């Protein structure tokens, strides 16, 4: 295992500061966790430009690797974005894993949910065809298990630096203001008349 991985979520600040990859999995770290998810960013991904490495890994604290894989597959069907990297979806699994580690009832709920999905698939649900997965999900949309996954996902999936880059949101980059950085750079419509708008302030 090479030690170059994308920092996921909280560790990413450190990554930016040191310029070094932050999740560096060693055998010892692997032994401490309950499982690990791996992946590689697509060559064409916009994220490859900002990520320290194309390989990513997520160490799990509570869920096992199979549970992580099924939940990853589930989230990908709940919020299906054709070109969104698994690394971003993995952030949802990371937060679900964190909740499972803190709360036994959530850990049990997730375990039971995964078990039921596998039972429907007669094996590994994550390997099931997308159409079958969608039918399974529609059938469980009212369950607390689904609500836990969905309500975690809608926050985790769209509130991280990788998602901001993918969907095109400036986030922290806007902290200094867009006055001289394109707040009015839309060029495919005429500019409104001066009396309806206002002057750019002189410094």
């Amino acid at each position, binding site marked *: 295992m090479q030690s170059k991985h994308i920092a996921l979520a909280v560790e990413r600040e450190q990554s930016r500061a040191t310029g070094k990859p932050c999740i560096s999995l060693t055998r010892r770290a692997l032994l401490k966790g309950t499982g690990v998810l791996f992946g590689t960013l697509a060559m064409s991904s916009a994220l490859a430009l900002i990520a320290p490495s194309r390989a990513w890994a997520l160490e799990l604290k509570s869920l096992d690797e199979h549970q992580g894989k099924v939940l990853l597959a589930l989230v990908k069907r*709940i*919020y*299906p*974005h*054709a070109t969104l990297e698994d690394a971003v979806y993995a952030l949802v699994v990371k937060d679900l894993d964190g909740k499972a580690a803190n709360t036994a009832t959530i850990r049990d709920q997730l375990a039971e949910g995964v078990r039921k999905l596998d039972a429907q698939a007669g094996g590994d649900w994550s390997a099931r065809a997308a159409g079958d997965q969608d039918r399974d999900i529609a059938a469980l*949309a009212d369950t607390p298990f689904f609500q836990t996954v*969905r309500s975690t996902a*809608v*926050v985790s*999936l*769209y*509130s991280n630096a990788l*998602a*901001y880059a993918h*969907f*095109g*949101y*400036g*986030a*922290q980059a*806007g*902290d*200094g*203001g*867009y*006055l001289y*950085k*394109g*707040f*009015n*750079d*839309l060029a*495919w*419509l*005429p*500019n*409104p008349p001066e*009396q*309806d*708008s*206002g*002057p*750019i*302030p002189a410094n």
Partner: protein
Amino acid sequence: MTNTNTQEQPGKKFSLDDDHVVVVIGSGAGGGTLANELAQKGVDVVILEAGKLHTQADFLADEWASFQQLAWLDPRTASGSWRIARDFPNLPAWICKTVGGTSVHWAGASLRIQPYEFKALTTYGKVDGATLLDWPISREDLDPYYARAEKKLGVTRTNGLPGLPGNNNFKIFHEGATKIGYKHVNTGHMAINSVTNDDRAHCYQRGFCFQGCRFGAKWSTLYTELPRAIETGHAELRTEAHVARIEHDETGKVNAVLYYDAKGALQRQKARAVAVAGNSIETPRLLLNSHSAKFANGLANSSDQVGRNYMRHTTGSVYATFANKVDMYKGTVMAGIVEDEARHDTSRGFAGGYHMETISLGLSFYAAFLDPGAWGPKFADAMDQYAHTAGLWIVGEDMPQSSNRVTLNTELKDQYGLPTANVHFDDHPNDVAMREHGFKQSEALYKAAGAKDTYRVPPYPSTHNLGTARMSDKPEDGVVNKHGQSHDIRNLFISDGSQFTTGAAENPTLTIVSLAIRQADYIAAQMKQGSI
């Protein structure tokens, strides 16, 4: 740029036993303004603010983290047929618990209520199910105070201040609005500096208006009224001071305020008069929680109107996607306004009017609010188009209803063991008709600008909370008189949007500030006369 020097607390400290002070509860647009106006006149004021001090340097360019920092997250509940009760049952309102209150979070739109809206009952006539009433004051009465408020806030397009430059979101809005025939479309009257003014920087188009303005370009009591009040030596600001109860003497006059301090210890501040400005949910909650043997239904509540007629404006958003990039998040959140629908014209099928104002959300909140609870390919497709999306917000007059009401939830207690607020709300048929009209017009606006898809977005947790201690001529119709003075207790005042008799179609802050300036004049005069 003005520093937030509330931290240094150079000013006066008052003793808990000092019974000559006016206690102001809340440091937002209403309380912060009232406190400063009183302090400027030499009246001694103690400001009790439940929130912590967060300065401009603390503000975050991260929607969820900022929400955790600034929002009022103490437990509350919601009931009724509004979607909020289902989607956000513990978050009926998106308002703040921080020094400066919701003036830290507001978008800055500063509009005068129109003359006819002060006479809602007379203008609209009786509407079934609505508790319409004329305000006991007219636009003419308030105009001098509006003028003072506009000057204080540095409102654009007043006092020779230029309008703000329009951002990308505004360009689309303007194009669509003018194409469908609207005549009054511009970057609005905003309490955001278009030029350096009043020791505050001009706007740098950061786009995080809701998360606190790091540059201080947007007016907030945090870095204007509050430090200025403290500088006079007549005001003391106590932060993390959570008021539990207002007490009264045997004659019924209020004489002290009980609050939990930052360490959780209960304190009693004596008072000559008390002004409540906790926003329209906490204000009635406090009045109701202050019930006593003499006032069994709560303070100032002989009319049984405390908590009733809760209004939140008829709102809704429309987002639209375009073939080309928009980047709506760049620049001011409310970057433009259409005023043409803000009129009373029943040919549209409803009473009262509404404004359309641009709005933008970051990716995180767009996901949270676009269609709460939604998932699947349609939702994902809308998210995929985020960078190509423009947005606007409808803000219109909602009908006051007696059953739309803030009550005490005695089942659910807060961290101090106090009953929490339940907010009950059902749309009035007039609200539904207005929203439908607003949605259709907004869709037409964006289609005219070349939109591919449009999305109707349900109201967010309320930011404009109004009416729960309404102003009325007659004591039996409301809670306070035309000065915000309670009908029942002459040294108890309401100083926030709770006073609104009806909602009008305008963002409420400018009116809240104007009423606070007017109330300060009145309180000072009453004190001079020895009436309070």
